[in-house]
């Protein structure tokens, strides 16, 4: 991707920048110097909690104009020092799209929404609607004024994110900043979002992008800036240079890599320091010829799930869901689902937002009542059990750990489930101590759960779910928004639990996680069961995956492309099928 940037006049210029929130002692960024030029698309990467979002807020001028924070150094937005303006006055210089589609909607119609910014900036009244409609049309949201009067709630998450771009675009800012814009989107919506974003790339506009999911974002980027754990810039350059040469370093820092780069790294292609690792599948194909191992042994063609299938087929049915339907607020959100879950299996539930994934798992845990059908746990009907009796059998970890915290210290949090069950004190103390040690939380025994870091909160919430020794653990999006290192840590923990015989039911957007670890997959679509089967069979059926509104997992996607030349890749979907070769 050729850089057409004019390198003389930066649209954003950071000099010696460090930021500290009023509530914290920690300075984010060690004298960051960063100039962004017109026409560039800059991808900003870094491990979880490194301060990417903070740096982004500073370069868009929202720090210090809108948020209480100390800013050292200086930031120029379109030549204006952000220290010398008030909140809102930079809107014409920098447009921003945030992660949460819900928290950006201010008005009741698409048209009003796009007009909002123009009105704030005192655009002439007779121009406002024309400019708003142009922006809506450009993002494919409305062709006529009539269509533009729809309410934003009618749009999907992806539609609302495109609406957020339209809102920024209407003000025609020279810089567009996007903070993990697709984090809450389904794979297809996210691809559509990037397609729409690509049309905005031109010589006059700069785009700054923070994103975990790199395969889509890299098609757009012509510069990558990497922050370390403290928010200090450690790499800055063309994607081929930064990701191609420093992939192992980035991976060790916990930063997600493009799938093709990850595969190349696994095959030890970074052994030759002269070589840049591939970023895309088309670059990966020729690079594979350099692998030292004999052609046929690069990947394993036997489905790794097969042997597990036979073991599981011998097991008892632990959860029997029969024709289960759920109605919420007068709407049927789950339609007659039949599902048998075997003792000891690792079952994944996938589907787009609103497909009924959480409703199904909540119904299994007795947290929402069925309108018809039945669910039995090891032969006992759910209706014969109260919440606590179900809790003895099923531990449920919600997406947001904070939703489940009830006590003032981590120790009390763990003890809670046992105390309400009136277990003797010595047993409570003993089990809590063991759980604290097992999840490496002993240091935080007397700390308020809300003050733990995100990873610690997650570990604590899993520990509280396991304290009653349930045989089934349900996890709702446990790796959401985590960097690679943390996601790996969480997944390892889940796999260890599964190995001790605990049945795992996991809801996740991350189809590669499913491909790598799950025994079986349940696909839901519009509240109905689309299919359930062995992971390999489901994930290799591209048409089925697309019917569910999803995309094949990244490794599968690459394998399909490579299989045209190298047939041994035809059956690959799991990262583990690719041979790990030390450099």
């Amino acid at each position: 991707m050729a850089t057409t940037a004019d390198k003389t006049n930066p649209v954003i210029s950071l000099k010696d920048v460090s930021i500290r929130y009023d509530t914290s002692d920690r300075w984010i960024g060690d004298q960051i110097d960063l100039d962004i030029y017109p026409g560039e698309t800059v991808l900003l990467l870094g491990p979880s909690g490194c301060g990417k979002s903070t740096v982004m807020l500073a370069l868009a001028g929202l720090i210090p104009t809108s948020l209480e924070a100390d800013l050292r150094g200086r930031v120029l937005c379109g030549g204006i020092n952000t220290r010398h303006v008030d909140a809102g006055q930079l809107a014409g210089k920098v447009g921003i799209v945030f992660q949460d589609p819900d928290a950006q909607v201010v008005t009741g119609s698409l048209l009003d929404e796009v007009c909002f910014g123009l009105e704030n900036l005192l655009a002439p009244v007779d121009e406002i609607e024309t400019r708003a409609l142009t922006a809506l049309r450009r993002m494919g949201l409305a062709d006529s004024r009539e269509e533009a009067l729809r309410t934003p709630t009618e749009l999907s998450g992806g539609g609302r994110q495109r609406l957020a771009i339209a809102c920024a675009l209407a003000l025609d800012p020279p810089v567009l900043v996007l903070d993990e814009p697709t984090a809450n989107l389904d794979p297809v919506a996210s691809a559509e979002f990037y397609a729409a974003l690509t049309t905005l790339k031109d010589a006059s506009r700069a785009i700054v992008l923070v994103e975990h999911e790199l395969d889509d974002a890299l098609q757009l980027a012509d510069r990558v800036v990497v922050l370390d754990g403290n928010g200090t810039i450690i790499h800055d350059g063309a994607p081929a240079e930064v990701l191609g040469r420093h992939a192992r370093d980035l991976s060790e820092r916990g930063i997600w890599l493009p799938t093709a780069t990850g595969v190349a790294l696994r095959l030890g292609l970074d052994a030759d320091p002269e070589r840049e690792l591939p970023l895309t599948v088309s670059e990966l194909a020729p690079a594979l010829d350099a692998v030292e191992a004999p052609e046929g042994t690069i990947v394993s063609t036997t489905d790794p799930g097969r042997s597990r299938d036979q073991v599981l087929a011998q097991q008892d049915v632990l959860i029997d869901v029969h024709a289960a339907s759920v109605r919420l607020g007068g709407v049927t959100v789950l339609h007659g689902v039949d599902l048998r879950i075997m003792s000891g299996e690792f079952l994944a539930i996938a589907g787009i937002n609103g497909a009924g994934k959480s409703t199904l798992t909540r119904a299994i845990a007795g947290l929402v009542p069925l309108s018809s059908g039945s669910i039995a746990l090891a032969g006992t009907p759910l209706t014969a059990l109260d919440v606590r009796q179900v809790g003895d059998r099923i531990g449920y970890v919600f997406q947001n750990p904070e939703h489940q915290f009830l006590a003032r210290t981590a120790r009390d949090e763990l003890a809670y489930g046992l105390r309400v069950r009136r277990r003797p004190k010595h047993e409570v103390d003993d089990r809590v101590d063991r759980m604290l040690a097992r999840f490496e939380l002993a240091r935080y025994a007397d700390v308020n759960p809300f003050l733990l870091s995100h990873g610690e909160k997650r570990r604590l919430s899993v520990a509280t779910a396991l304290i009653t020794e349930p045989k089934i653990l349900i996890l709702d999006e446990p790796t959401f928004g985590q960097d690679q290192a943390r996601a790996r840590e969480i997944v390892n923990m889940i796999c260890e639990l599964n190995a001790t015989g605990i049945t795992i039911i996991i809801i996740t957007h991350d189809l590669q996680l499913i491909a790598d670890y799950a025994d079986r997959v349940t696909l839901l679509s519009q509240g109905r069961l689309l299919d359930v089967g062995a992971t390999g069979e489901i994930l290799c059926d591209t048409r089925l995956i697309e019917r569910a509104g999803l995309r094949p997992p990244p490794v599968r996607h690459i394998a399909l492309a490579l299989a045209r030349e190298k047939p041994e890749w035809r059956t690959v979907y799991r990262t583990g099928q690719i041979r790990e070769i030390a450099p």
Partner: protein
Amino acid sequence: MSDGHNTATRRGWLATINPVAKLAATLPPLALLLFTRDIATPAVVAGFALVAIVSGVPLRLRTLFAGAAAILLVGAWTTLVFALLTRSDLVKDSPIIIDGWITLRAAAMHSGASTAVRLAAMMMLALLGSFGTTTNQLASALVHQCRIPYRFAYGSIAAMRFAPRYRQDLLTLRAAQRARGIIDSAGPVGYFLRTGRSIIPLLAAGARYATRLSLAMDARGFGAFSSRSDRQPSVVRARDVIFVMTVWAGFAAVFVTTGMLGLLSISGDLHDPR
């Protein structure tokens, strides 16, 4: 606006009245109604308000019937409750009309009924003052007619969009806590326990949401200048003045008429149970 007229006819004439004019027209009568103690005056006011609402807002027949049924039920219930609450020494001279396991005297029933009708009339006026008003109209009117700073007017309206999300959060939170094995007893104690536990996580989520929303608004220039363009600025037109004058005159006429007929009864003491 070329299609402004169409929108107006589709949404009824009440929607075309300035929201501030509607409030100005209905709030003083609403306050005065507090002091009436008879049945006729509020009943006539409620009747006129109802006629204005039905003619001014397109309501579906079903909505209308459901509303009427609700008003009758609530009215009957209020009558009974307030009749029972009336101090017995004040009505001991009036004839007994029900004498079973409760004793009700005619004066007590009258007092209950007048309270119920008063409440119904006040409700009607409140509806008349708010029906057909969109949040955008209200914000614009508050800025232009009441000189309220636009940041405050539009900011409060944006905050109202939090409600559906808050409900969703609350449902998830309840399910999440139930999964921890909490069983709250039914009734007020369980309610307080449940609420107490929900407050901190909900406030934390609410504060985060508010920060995000205000950042998104600032990023789009909210508050950049002391005023903002208004595509449909709220103006006071002749019809708004006529509306206010008509409501006030009509209200005064009702008072004068019932007063002359000897039906009107007024008390300055809001606790006066008469």
